[in-house]
């Protein structure tokens, strides 16, 4: 009898404790993003102003782009002149299941028109060729390349992103900064 009572009490406590967080959970919230701010040097020249033909993509190391994509931030100078300012969506099981998790490796890719450039800084790390590896830190933090990160320390503030135009002449035609192909006579 007393054992049954004890089990009942234990069950009640277990249900209460388990359901507690559910009851206290508020409405779904879009979590704070992780911000990527980057000045960009392509083939030795820093971009300035706004350049609609230059874009950035942020993907996981397996090549899947984090969702939702920050469309305005994807374009160079699209949010703030003379930089990429891109909100990397943070993972949330309800609102952003395709977001990035804190501590996860991510790859940044720079495009000029349809041409994907080779990112030389940051280093490739575990990213596919052409990409530059970064580490997703905490929601609300910012990773700044040649711009103050947040917190403004060595982990969050780094030199500018550097990229080069591939030597492939077919792809090179897509970018004005690569030398135009010289027609053979």
């Amino acid at each position, binding site marked *: 009898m007393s054992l049954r009572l004890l089990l009942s009490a234990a069950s009640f406590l277990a249900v209460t404790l388990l359901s507690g967080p559910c009851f206290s959970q508020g409405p779904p919230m879009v979590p*704070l993003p992780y911000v990527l*701010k980057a000045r960009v040097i392509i083939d030795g020249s820093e971009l300035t102003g706004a350049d609609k033909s230059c874009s950035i993509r942020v993907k996981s190391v397996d090549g899947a782009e984090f969702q939702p994509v920050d469309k305005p931030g994807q374009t160079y100078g699209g949010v703030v002149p003379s930089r990429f300012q891109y909100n990397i969506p943070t993972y949330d099981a309800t609102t952003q299941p395709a977001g990035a998790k804190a501590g996860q490796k991510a790859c940044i890719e720079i495009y000029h028109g349809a041409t994907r450039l080779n990112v030389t800084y940051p280093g490739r790390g575990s990213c596919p060729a052409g990409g530059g590896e970064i580490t997703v830190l905490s929601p*609300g933090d*910012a990773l700044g390349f040649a711009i103050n990160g947040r917190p403004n320390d060595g982990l969050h503030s780094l030199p500018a992103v550097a990229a080069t135009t591939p030597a492939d002449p077919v792809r090179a035609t897509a970018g004005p900064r690569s030398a135009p192909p010289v027609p053979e006579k």
Partner: protein
Amino acid sequence: MEPRGLIRLCGLFFLAGLLALAAAGPRLAQSEPSAPEYPYLLNATLNVNGTLITGANTTYTVGVTDTSGNPLPDAATGDATLTYGSVVAGRFEYQIPMSGSTTPSAVCISVYSSGTQLYLTNTSPGQGSCNPGSIELTGLTAGDSTGFGGIPGEPNNSSHTFSSPLTAVTEASAAISVTCGSNARNSTTPESFGNVNLGQTATDTTCKITNTIADSNLIITNVTASITSAATPTGCGFSVVSPTTFPISLAYSTSQALTLAFTPCGTGSAQTGALTITYDGAPGSSASTYCVGLAGTGVTAINLVSGWNLIGLAVPFSNAAVSNVLSKDLTVPASNVSVIWAYVNGQWQYWDPNDTTGSLLQQLTTGNGYWFFMTRAGTLTIK
């Protein structure tokens, strides 16, 4: 002359004498002074603002009335007031009429400077039933006198002879004062409640009324507070918590503590009001008022702890620019705000003190939630 003729002549003189006595008799009886017709003499030296007045000084006059304010003109001149030193140098010598229906049981003495009544601060005799500024003499008997300032009265005893002169102060110093803490307060220097949270009531217990006019009979008849900057205040504004029971008698140099309250009627610019003290203190007046300005600002205060804070704004900032808010409305330096995030129009925006160029969040407005990351606790005050 024959003896018969001499007798006749004597008889004529006798008759003439009788006739003369008969004619003169009533005249002598009429000039005989009767007791009720003697005036009551007021002899007084005068001290004004600490200076003994000497000689003849036409600036100062004395007047006497009954306790209802009816003049009792000087019996010698018939004038309602008498100039200082006009009868005897260095004193008033006023003959208070004591005849017929004007025989008073008590009189009020008032002193004037160029026609403006001064405040007599004598306490023995004091104001009595007279108006403020005057003193009362009682028990007047025809032919007696009262002396002030060492002049013997008649009879020469403590009821008729006073060692002090009539002691007067000018109206400027004949006032109450209000101080809050150690600061004087009046209509041009208001008492401020500072910032008070909307929906809350702040009390101020630092103020007091002080009797500065050496009048042991100063009576405060009312103390009220009102708001002037709100058109139709309901359940808000300035108020007097205490005292609430009147009249209050204040001895010279003593004080009455005040407890005032302020409930903001809204936020924004400072709200103003008035504290009105009604008292009987001004010379010759049965009611005077003293006004003190009141001020207070309704605010909404949000306490921010160190670390993350999610806040919303119930009322807008008067200047919603983030840089302005952090520099003026935050109790700690703006450098203690590490970042502010807000989800605006389906997009996360931030304000970063280290990257204001890239900070899309430039305004703090109602209708949004804001994440503040603080490196030190502080309070955000919304005016």
